[in-house]
């Protein structure tokens, strides 16, 4: 079953305001290339006799005080997306169909809102109160609701509810355009006198398919439920969901936190039954005026427990203060688990106390190694919740010779210790020198260097406008890019925008200036073989 706000519903701001004032006829125009044409109209404009598709010049002549707005597809898309967000309150399966249609799969959800009729009435009333002109239909199939919402509704009766199994009867009187077929096909059918769906329902299928294509029959079957059609929901449905609807909106942070705590308890119970812990949680706040805010929190290990969740969301709220705009308050709060993982609690004491969600409050001093890992995971979670998980990183080795590609920073919450083994890296012993710098500048900074021998180490160089005289040097260490990226590479891949155009061989020198600063600089390109005028770069700083 689905529910459809129809044309006029997903309009950009101008029409929304117009519905409130309704003093002058309003229209959104569309530039078709040859002429400006009306695209959508408000009720007053329709009453004046205008129709979508009329040329703007004609319309102006007939209705001089017509107020015109240019279409703004991005704004409309954003508005429709925010409406889809809002529709999340009815079902997690909301599909967005640009430019102005939402399809909701309300299977199994309707009873929560007073049945199908109650749900539709509620949605229509709330959306109309927000200033939208909206039409809706509930039927067995998505294709049927699209047709019904566009062609079976009127201003007086914006919602159509087709009881189960009566789709065929409801669709029969509708024009063929309600099937969503191409206008040429509609015109071709009407040329032989077939204008309504009823006209083709009884016809033999083979001749119809032969003359008007398989598309017509496919659409018809989809509308009648004889062929399947899947909608693509905007957001993945959550694994577990707990929500609280409020008769009286709440705006105080304390109230929200109290509700979050109790929702966290419900979610944790559900997780416990599945012997799982959540890795990604989403807290959604629906404001009374239709605005929807989402807070997401990821964790480094499976977690459950209301208090632990609350403390993570508190960090999130603290990170960007004032992010939560309560306005007139929230009337629906929802906590969802988007990702979960199996999680067996550890018994930590003889009394049967369980370790649930760790000790996020500030460190426990009880046990041994177990506590230390929990402490650390809690710390990573707290930091990640406030700064963003990607900003709490660890060094992962990458099998690559170029220094800037040797290390990959991965979120600490999502990486196993085993992936971070650096043992394979050689460690110079005795007096063997350090060959890799302690700090790496990314990107490497160009320097003006003077070398006596073209292929030798530099004598002096200028970095960040200061001159350095080289007192000691070691090298070169020659690092070449992979052959498929190299300057003379035979099997060169076609150039993509992100790919460096020219990657010559590098000769690295470790140098020390007269004052004892140690740097890592390289000459970009082999002299006279790859480039006539090699450039120098400073890439690293040694201890």
């Amino acid at each position: 079953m689905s529910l459809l706000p129809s044309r006029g519903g997903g309009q950009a701001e101008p029409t929304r305001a117009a519905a409130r004032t309704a003093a002058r006829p309003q229209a959104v125009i569309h530039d078709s290339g040859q002429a400006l044409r009306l695209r959508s109209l408000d009720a007053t404009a329709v009453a004046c006799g205008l129709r979508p598709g009329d040329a703007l010049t004609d319309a102006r002549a007939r209705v001089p005080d017509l107020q015109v707005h240019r279409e703004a597809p991005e704004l409309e898309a954003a508005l429709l997306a925010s409406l889809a967000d809002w529709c999340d309150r009815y079902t997690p399966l909301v599909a967005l169909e640009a430019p102005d249609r939402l399809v909701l799969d309300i299977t199994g959800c309707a009873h929560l809102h007073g049945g199908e009729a109650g749900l539709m009435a509620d949605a229509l009333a709330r959306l109309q109160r927000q200033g939208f002109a909206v039409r809706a239909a509930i039927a067995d199939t998505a294709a049927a609701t699209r047709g019904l919402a566009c062609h079976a509704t009127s201003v007086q009766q914006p919602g159509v509810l087709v009881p189960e199994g009566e789709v065929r009867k409801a669709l029969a009187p509708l024009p063929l355009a309600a099937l969503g077929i191409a206008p040429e096909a509609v015109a071709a059918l009407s040329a032989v006198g077939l204008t309504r769906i009823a006209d083709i329902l009884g016809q033999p299928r083979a001749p119809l398919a032969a003359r008007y294509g398989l598309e017509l029959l496919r659409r018809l079957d989809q509308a009648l439920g004889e062929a399947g059609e899947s909608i693509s929901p905007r957001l993945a449905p959550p694994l577990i969901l707990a929500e609280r609807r409020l008769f009286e909106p709440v705006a105080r942070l304390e109230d929200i936190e109290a509700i979050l705590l109790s929702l966290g308890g419900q979610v944790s119970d559900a997780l416990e039954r599945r012997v799982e812990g959540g890795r990604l949680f989403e807290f959604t706040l629906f404001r009374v005026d239709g605005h929807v805010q989402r807070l997401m929190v990821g964790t480094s290990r499976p977690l459950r427990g209301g208090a632990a969740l609350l403390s993570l969301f508190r960090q999130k709220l603290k990170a960007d203060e004032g992010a939560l705009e309560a306005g007139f308050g929230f009337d629906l709060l929802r906590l969802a688990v988007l990702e979960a993982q199996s999680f067996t609690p550890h018994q930590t004491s003889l009394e049967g106390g369980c370790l649930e969600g760790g000790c996020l409050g500030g460190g426990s001093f009880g046990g041994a190694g177990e506590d230390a890992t929990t402490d650390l995971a809690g710390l990573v979670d707290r930091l990640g919740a406030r700064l963003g998980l990607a900003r709490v990183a660890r060094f992962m080795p990458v099998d690559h010779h170029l220094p800037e590609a040797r290390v990959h920073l991965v979120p600490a919450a999502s990486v196993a210790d085993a992936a971070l083994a650096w043992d394979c890296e050689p460690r110079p012993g005795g007096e063997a020198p350090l060959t890799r710098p302690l700090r790496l500048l990314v990107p490497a900074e160009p320097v003006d260097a003077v070398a006596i021998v073209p292929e030798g180490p530099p004598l002096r160089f200028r970095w960040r406008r200061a001159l350095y005289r080289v007192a000691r040097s070691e090298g070169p260490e020659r690092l070449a890019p992979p052959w498929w990226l190299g300057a003379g590479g035979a099997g060169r891949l076609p150039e993509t925008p992100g790919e460096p155009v020219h990657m010559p061989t590098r000769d690295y020198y470790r140098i020390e200036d007269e004052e004892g600063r140690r740097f890592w600089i390289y000459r970009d390109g082999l002299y006279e073989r790859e480039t006539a005028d090699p450039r120098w770069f400073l890439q690293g700083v040694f201890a």
Partner: protein
Amino acid sequence: MPVSPPAARAGKPARVDLAGKPAQAKSDTGQDKAGASDRVRLGVPEVDGLMACGAGLALGALHEIGADESRDCGAVSGLGLAFVAAVARSRPGQVLWACDPMVRREAGLPHAPGLWQFGLDPARIILVLARRPEEALWAMEEGARCPALAAVVGEFHGFVRALDLTASRRLSLRAQESGVPVFLLRHGAVAEPGAALTRWRAAPAASGPVSLAPGGSEPGMGRHPFIGLSRWRAALDRNREGSSARLTLEWSHAASRLAAPAASDALVSATAAGPDPAAAGGELVAFPGRRAG
């Protein structure tokens, strides 16, 4: 063990040398077996002797290492990491390393293969890439509350308004409560008042000699001799536990050990009273640190 009971901390400090083995302390009560300790020896008698009881750098305290010029970031990182490596050898757990965005721009990020060669396992580092200095400070404070960490490192560049006396006092208190040492690395900033237990200034120094052939002349390539072990001129210009000092320190990465090289002249010129800051750098100033106020 991350946490040392307050009683042990207040009493006679146990000693741990760089290899992580408890030194032959006289009162080996068994607590030392678990590694309970609030000090770490750096292995340089000249430095260890400057601290209380002559027992080395205090854990559970704030230590600051800085330099006036941002181009001396290598010396600051080197000296700081030498301390961190010494701590990481004696304490289990991870090292939380918070970076201010300006440091990432001016001095770059720590390079994992370089850390490995220097003597600190990159797998033990959790890097926090803060967007603002305030965030980095907050992360450091959270880290200093977590006894499971081996150490907390925070890097800042230039004058940071958020890093005032209150902030450093808070860090210092957190470190005392949890026993986790906190190292504050300040690049391109003049010394400011703070609550740090020790404050070091790091300056580059010519590296040690290379002696591949015993008795022979210094080996080299063309006109340049080779580079030896990393050395820095370190000035301990504030020490709440003892006197200040200036000395040249050398890092032997193979042994993960600090040393005061014997060859260099005027090693220790300990001034009995008052700070004696290092002389400002040369006349060529690339990016001088913004002066406070």
